[in-house]
């Protein structure tokens, strides 16, 4: 690298440093959106996943097909439908709806996998002690499924966190939106801004996964999480 | 040069992992058609000794020669061509059928044509009694069948020497016999074999010599009858007694 390039980079880093506050202002909106979308996805996705495994033929079929349709649609398209098409507002609500619907489809899939990985004998044992099918699902299968759910959920967390950046397109002021708006005043600082934003995303990913590890430790069954 | 008379000569073999000396001054020889059985407690270095012979592990001290040639001076792939190996956990190539497993060496190492390699593979499978399973994949075979494919795979390279590392210890009792049967036939046909096995019935009847290894040292060796009836070292006696208790004497399944 030449000295000129280095000194330029220094100026750009100074610019990033001066505007770090602006960039970090995007963190809370991103975290909040990730949280609401994951929560919505969880509340809708888990029952859907159970429906796919234990539901009647028709409802399981419907849940499966809806899942395929949603998982096959780009998040950008879904978000434009909720914001511009359906007119949900403010942007936070539209983004939560879009990311939530999509996350529900993925979480249903993860939860279905978790349920299917549980030994068949568990269901039989539950019925054998006299639980009804619904009771067995509620008290035996779903609790175990949830405990095997965490690793897949970690993956989902990372995806949703990164995809909050797409909400910049509907003017939701998350991290990427802030970064993008810092570019015009000093275009040469784009790589530095990018690296900084990357560091923020990485930090959020790490912290989030640590928290989920903790959740896994707290609720996981010894050896019960190993779903190969 | 007496070493040239032997098929395999191991002299003062030293091998360590980090600070731990795993083989400490091993000396022995094997002649053509010998069946050398190697016994010893877990961790005594049996597998390591075998793996030194075909250089799957490198050793620091001593020499090993095959047919008078220092194995360290040989091309490692050439050495492995001449020495077949059968593993405890089979290690069949999971993506290849039984026939393809056996044909891989002749085809890719010996450079035979596809047809030749195939014919050879079928012959070897026939020899271990598996001609009718040639197109099955490893996942579709029983443990005993897998191990016989493993033997056929080694045989297809026309080895001068075969190494067996506990070939039956991963098998259910009722499957052990079929593998030992194949090994016995091999011995009868004059194959030179170095076997780690605790099947004492097999050792007693087939071995030309049994070596007892402990803590990386050769405690003693001798022909089976002598070793069983008159062990010189107390450790050998104790070990043999425990083995016999476990495996129910010298009779073979």
């Amino acid at each position, binding site marked *: 690298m030449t000295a000129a390039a280095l000194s330029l980079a220094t100026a750009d880093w100074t610019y990033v440093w001066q505007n770090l506050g602006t960039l970090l202002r995007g963190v809370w909106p991103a975290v909040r959106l990730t949280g609401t979308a994951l929560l919505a996805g969880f509340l809708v996705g888990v029952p859907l996943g159970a429906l796919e495994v234990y539901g009647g033929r028709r409802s399981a079929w419907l849940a499966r097909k809806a899942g395929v349709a949603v998982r096959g*649609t780009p998040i950008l398209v879904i978000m434009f439908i909720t914001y511009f098409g359906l007119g949900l507002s403010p942007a936070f609500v539209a983004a939560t709806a879009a990311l939530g619907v999509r996350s529900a489809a993925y979480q249903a899939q993860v939860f279905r996998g978790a349920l299917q990985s549980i030994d068949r004998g568990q269901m039989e044992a539950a019925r054998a002690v006299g639980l009804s099918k619904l009771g067995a699902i509620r008290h035996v299968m779903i609790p175990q499924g949830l405990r095997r759910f965490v690793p897949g959920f970690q993956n989902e967390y990372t995806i949703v966190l990164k995809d909050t950046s797409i909400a910049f397109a509907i003017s939701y002021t998350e991290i990427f939106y802030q970064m993008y708006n810092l570019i015009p005043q000093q*275009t040469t600082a784009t790589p530095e801004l990018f690296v900084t934003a*990357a560091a923020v995303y*990485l930090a959020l990913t790490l912290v989030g996964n640590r928290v989920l590890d903790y959740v896994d430790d707290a609720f996981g069954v010894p050896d019960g999480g190993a779903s190969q | 040069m007496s070493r040239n008379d032997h098929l395999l000569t191991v002299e003062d073999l030293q091998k360590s992992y980090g600070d731990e000396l795993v083989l400490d001054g091993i000396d022995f020889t094997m002649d053509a058609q010998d069946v050398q059985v190697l016994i010893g407690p877990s961790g005594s270095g049996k597998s390591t000794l075998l793996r030194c012979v075909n250089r799957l592990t490198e050793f620091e001290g001593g020499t090993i020669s095959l047919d008078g040639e220092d194995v360290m001076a040989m091309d490692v792939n050439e050495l492995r061509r001449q020495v077949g190996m059968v593993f405890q956990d089979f290690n069949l190539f999971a*993506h290849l059928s039984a026939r393809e497993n056996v044909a891989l*060496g002749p085809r890719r190492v010996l450079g035979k044509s596809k047809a030749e390699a195939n014919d050879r593979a079928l012959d070897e499978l026939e020899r271990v009694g598996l001609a009718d399973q040639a197109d099955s994949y490893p996942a579709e075979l029983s443990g005993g069948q897998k191990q016989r494919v493993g033997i056929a795979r080694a045989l297809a390279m026309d080895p001068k020497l075969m190494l067996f590392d506990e070939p039956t210890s991963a098998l259910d009792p009722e499957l052990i016999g079929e593998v030992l049967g194949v090994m016995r036939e091999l011995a009868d046909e004059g194959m030179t074999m170095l076997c780690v096995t605790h099947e004492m019935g097999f050792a007693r009847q087939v071995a030309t010599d049994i070596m007892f290894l402990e803590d990386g040292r050769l405690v003693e060796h001798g022909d089976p009858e002598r070793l069983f009836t008159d062990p010189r070292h107390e450790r050998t006696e104790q070990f043999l007694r425990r083995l016999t208790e476990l495996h129910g004497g010298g009779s073979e399944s």
Partner: protein
Amino acid sequence: MSAERERRHADLERGLTYAIGGAIWLWLCFRWLNSWLGGVVVGPTEPLVPQSFATATESLGATLGAVGDGVPLVATGFDLVGWAVGMVGFASQYGPQLAVAAWLTVVLTVISTLVGLVVAVPLAAARVYGRVTKYVAFVYIELIRGTPLVAQLFLLYYGAPFLSKFIREVPGVGQGIVPAQAVWIAIIGFVINSSAYQAEYIRGSVESVDPGQLTAARAVGLDKLGGIRYVVLPQALRYAIPSWTNELVYLIKYSSLAMFITVPEIFTQADSIGSETFAYTNAYVLAAGFYLVLVVTASYGMSKVEAEVAIPGVGSSDAGR
């Protein structure tokens, strides 16, 4: 009895899927050919059915939508039916434009996945076997996987003006069938992104092959490279298929982000149709349909490949993003 019925249902569903899918693909191929040949049959983006058909369905849709107004549930039901009918007309008018754009999406994703694979193999090798390169590969992979794709595209497009300039000056860019500079930047972005993910998939699948396999290969006399080539890779590549399916699906969907850097792919086209007609929902839903067709086709094709090369015992390890 119920098993019999279930099988019949499954057959029916499969038949219907094939019929609809086949028809859509016939139509797509027709549109592409027609557009490459400069519109020999109809104009490249001109619909096959007349405008009057669209107008008719739209007014029928509007009529249906008005039925039951005021009655809570019934009204919503008819609204939906009316919308669906109107959607048919809308699709017949604007489908052709999206079909032409879909070709670009296909090109973007296929090229990016393949070139991404070519970059990913040495990257994965460096990650597993390298000394210094190991850390370089690690940082690259984690930096890329840890940041949003949209940010990466922006960095390349707005943050590296020399790149745009360089590409624009390559002779032929933007002329004839050679796509314009933005498309190249999108491809570079997707390749960078995809290579990081694919490198991780390859690493994972190589590591899922039992080390004993390589030992056995060495014991037969193969050298290390031979062992990797004839024994480890054939198994690892099979393990990797599900992740490749995921990767392909991912790229098809996320290629929509190229819209932000002016690449005229499906969603860019849909967005401009939306602002032209103010029928945003229709335009976006139609775009979603196109992506869905591509995604479903890709998954189906990959499952065929997987079945084709399947070997008992060399199982599919499910991985992906």
